[in-house]
């Protein structure tokens, strides 16, 4: 019996921390292969640029653990940025609150629709993806207007540095820690796992299913909006062409991080590892420097497949033995 448990445990560890291990391997390989890989500047650029996807992916982690999916985050990310830049004309508070309010509202509405009508999250948030991008285009005059961040304090939020890393990195770290506590140590987190693991049972056990779902999508919307706003602060403008396909990156990061798409299991640490892994892969491709653009895609696709297959086979082998 104890052996069974240990094997299970190993399988679980591989499933949950596989991304971290692969990440470690890649960093070692990169360091050995390229002089300019393990430099402070390069590491900082990977960390800084990953932080925005990480914030989005935290929300996605909650959604996926809760048994759902949120395709609207890419659109909410760009909308958040445009709103933040537009809002910055009215000061710091407006720049931060406007995107949070609107993106939160979108998340809330999606959550309500999903929880109340039982429509599939995939399709509801797919409509969200379209509708939100439409809204962004409407606000930005079909994309012709790029709002510039005019509030210096808000711009500083995205550009200010501490110990060589910009503020958004610290915001992300705080959010990750908060998300870990929220998932593991609060009733809400338990409810998320429960509805993702067995929604019917959760309902019968007294979990407020509707409220939990709504909160999860609200959170995802808020985080995507926040990430967009921080990014706008960093770029000093509400760029309108961002976020296309970002939902897929976020989902990939969450899955690589060991969270099951079927819901009920997973965690934020894995997701962070997944996000960094994607960032490091990109960085390595850049280090090679002369891969044609199509070949880069083949490499990314193959790598994604490889990671999930390896993870799957390792954890399966452990379980079957």
């Amino acid at each position, binding site marked *: 019996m104890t052996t069974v448990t240990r094997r299970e445990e190993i399988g679980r560890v591989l499933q949950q921390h596989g991304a971290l291990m692969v990440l470690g391997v890649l960093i070692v390989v990169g360091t050995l292969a390229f002089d300019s890989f393990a430099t402070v500047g390069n590491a900082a650029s990977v960390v800084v640029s990953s932080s925005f996807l990480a914030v989005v992916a935290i929300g996605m982690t909650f959604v996926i653990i809760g048994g759902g999916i949120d395709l609207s985050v890419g659109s909410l990310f760009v909308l958040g940025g445009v709103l933040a830049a537009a809002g910055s004309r009215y000061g710091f508070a407006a720049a931060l609150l406007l995107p949070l309010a609107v993106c939160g509202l979108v998340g809330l509405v999606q959550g309500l629709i999903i929880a109340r009508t039982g429509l599939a999250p995939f399709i509801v948030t797919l409509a969200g993806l379209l509708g939100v991008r439409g809204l962004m285009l409407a606000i930005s005059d079909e994309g012709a207007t790029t709002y510039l961040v005019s509030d210096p304090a808000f711009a500083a939020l995205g550009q200010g540095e501490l110990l060589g890393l910009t503020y958004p990195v610290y915001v992300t770290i705080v959010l990750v820690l908060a998300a870990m506590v929220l998932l593991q*140590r609060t009733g809400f987190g338990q409810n998320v796992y429960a509805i993702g693991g067995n929604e019917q049972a959760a309902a019968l*056990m007294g979990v407020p299913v509707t409220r939990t779902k709504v909160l999860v999508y609200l959170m995802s919307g808020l985080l995507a909006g926040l990430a967009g706003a921080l990014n706008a602060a960093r770029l000093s403008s509400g760029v309108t062409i961002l976020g296309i396909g970002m939902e897929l990156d976020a989902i990939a990061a969450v899955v690589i991080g060991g969270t099951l798409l079927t819901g009920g299991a997973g965690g934020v640490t894995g997701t962070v590892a997944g996000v960094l892994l994607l960032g490091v892969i990109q960085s390595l491709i850049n280090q090679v420097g002369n891969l044609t653009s199509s070949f880069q895609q083949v490499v990314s696709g193959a790598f994604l497949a490889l990671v999930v297959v390896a993870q799957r086979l390792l954890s399966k082998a452990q379980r079957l033995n």
Partner: protein
Amino acid sequence: MKRTEPLLEARGITKRFPGVVALDDVHLALGAGEVHALVGENGAGKSTLIKVFTGVYQPDGGELRYNGAPAGFASPLEAQRAGISTIYQEVNLVPMMSVARNLLLGREPRGRLGVIDTARLYGHARAVLRGFGLDTDVRRPLRSLGVGAQQMVALARAVSVDAKVVIMDEPTSSLEPREVETLFGVIGRLRESGIAVIYVSHRLDELYRVCDNVTVLRDGRVAHTGPLADLNRLKLISLMLGRDLAEVKSGGLTRFNRDQGAVDGTPVVEARGLTRRHVLSDVTVSVRPGEVVGLGGLLGAGRTETAKAIVGALPLDGGQVLVAGAPLPRGGTKAAISAGVSMLPEDRKAEGIIPGLSVRDNIALAALPSLARAGVVSDSRIDRVVEIFMRRLRIKASSPHQVVSELSGGNQQKVLLARWLAVRPKVLLLDEPTRGIDVGAKAEVQALIDELAGEGLGVLLISSDLEELVEGADRILVLREGAVVGELSGENVTEAKIMAAIAERAHD
């Protein structure tokens, strides 16, 4: 023990589903400290009534009263907050969460800043479960426990909240005898502390041991309600079935009627030395045509695994299955099925029914290849087969096209039996074929097993119901920890001998 004012009361409750009236003007009164049996055939409406009490369904008519005032619960959560907690027929917990988190979901001990205190969470969970005779690592995911242990967790969860009413829908169907005793102990304590219990079970012995009053449902209506002591077993059965006393009497308690030991001939299926690490060790079983071989043992003894191994649904480290002398290729159930070996799985919901499909499609599923020509199915052939089995097994459905998930548990089980009979097997492995089905259906299934064996079918019968095993089987293998620890045949097939076989080795 009786109080004047009922604690929980149903007054004229009616609940309709498309095509059925599941509950029709149902009255039920429950006093504090009372253990109230709720009985009836499959599909009588027991589970539905419970779900109305607990806010899963809203009644179409009638009134619920709780604590002397009208009440209606919009959700299970509300009912739970009001003090009504429930153990449902199927284990309803979250398999991937840890035992402790399942047990205490929603009322985890909090530490500083209102954050869950994991140390206390695990400590508390361990303590609670020990009170239920369960000593396990509470940090492991729930799914790593056996079904029985899971049910105990569900039970512990339901009872350990501040409940005034505890509803148990067939709590013992997956418990082993020792666990059943623990449960009865718990019920006794509940009664003493003035908590009311609604107890649903098809096992009549249990009812007489723990219940004060009984309400009999038949086709959604109350057929009788009153003290249980006023009814003897036969009277109770006749009320449930709606048939005459005399008729019931002549039928006996199980419907088995076999001349035991009359079979011989070469085995139609022979499993040799089935071995799988930590699960099965060197299990050898054979079944001859017309023979019913019972598999006895406690929960977790490896009976299900034996059956699964025979049909190829479980990877093996060693061993071989021979059908009519020829070895069966491994890796999937298809080969076994086409060789004539079929298995009725134990877990109806997870491994049996396909909930979204109709009764018809569920029955025809396994037999499809034989009901098709060049991959194109023949509707008329399917209809013919489906009709035959629906009639023969008396499947109660509004039409063959009704979605199977709308049927009651017993009828779903019959649909599955029909699925397996439709492939014309030579050997049928039945894993708990009568679990969770009512006396009437149980008798029908048992009679059917008899009849099929009479026609030359070999049967491997797995059952936790010793009476059923003893009366139904020609020969019994007793398993313990994945190994055969005894074989009984002829005169030796008695409950006492089975118990002895299990016990002897258990205390080695």
